């Protein structure tokens, strides 16, 4: 007798969802991610292929059609696409100008931190100024959270997206929920 085998991909933070002191922590849904590196002269064709303007100003991001590009360094961007059938890597494959695009969809997971005290919770482990003046909506930065490196993106005045490596996801989630108990 042959038994049907079904294989299911499990996320690193499946079924973890917490609301503590008005701050909600929830794993973001799966997304396509691309680590993109290019010289300034490649920006125009790459922006065209991605369908958004790659930001050139430090700490800024661009968002179009569910796809966002985060400035991480003078020649480095993180492209995140949450739509179902998005293929940012395929869109970039046609570009002939010198660049490097690596699919890191499964390297990262993201935690959505939202609530009026979201910034305080993240500040428990992140030393950056997260006031709305210094870190407005759309601002993004690679930084630290406790002992790990994260990429932080503010999607709304009281909502942050915390991107971390998959193997650090448990640490990041536990750290944030501990911090939420203290605010």
């Amino acid at each position, binding site marked *: 007798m042959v038994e049907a085998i079904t294989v299911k991909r499990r996320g690193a933070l499946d079924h973890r969802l917490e609301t503590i002191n008005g701050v909600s922590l929830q794993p973001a849904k799966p997304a396509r991610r691309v680590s993109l590196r290019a010289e300034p002269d490649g920006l125009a064709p790459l922006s065209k292929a991605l369908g958004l303007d790659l930001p050139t100003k*430090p*700490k800024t991001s661009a968002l179009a059609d569910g796809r966002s590009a985060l400035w*991480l*360094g*003078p020649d*480095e961007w993180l492209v995140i696409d949450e739509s179902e059938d998005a293929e940012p890597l395929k869109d970039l494959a046609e570009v002939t100008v010198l660049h490097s695009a690596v699919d890191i969809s499964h390297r990262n997971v993201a935690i959505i931190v939202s609530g009026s005290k979201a910034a305080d919770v993240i500040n428990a482990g992140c*030393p*950056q100024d997260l006031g709305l003046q210094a870190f407005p909506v759309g601002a993004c*930065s*690679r*930084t*630290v959270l406790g002992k790990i*490196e994260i990429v932080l993106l503010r999607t709304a005045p009281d909502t942050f997206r915390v991107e971390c490596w998959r193997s650090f996801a448990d640490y990041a989630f536990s750290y944030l929920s501990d911090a939420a108990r203290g605010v």
Partner: protein
Amino acid sequence: MLLIHCPYCQEERPELEFRNGGEAHIARSRDIAAESDEAFEAFFFIRTNPKGLVYERWRHIHGCGRFFNAVRDSVTDKFLRVYKAGEPKPADVMKNLPEHSAWENIPPADQNVETPARDRVSTDGEA
């Protein structure tokens, strides 16, 4: 916590995001195999390590990832200037400083302090 100005991010960031990269402006020879042992030792191991102004490489490793150079006072830990990698040593950093600061390497004789007399070591009674 120190706030370090990153010339690429164009703002001050907490020191936890940075990592020190050792002394700056040490050029590697274009033909390293032709270097004499003494010249290689000087390039590879010997650092100035002054008390006072140091020219250092820093890396914004948990930020934009870029190396840059900084002029720092090794006594007060104060960053006097940061500049992008590849730019020459800023010449005017020294000019804006007071002539005699505590951090300067002033010989003891010029410091208006008496050199402590060394205790005489007695050798009496030793075998």
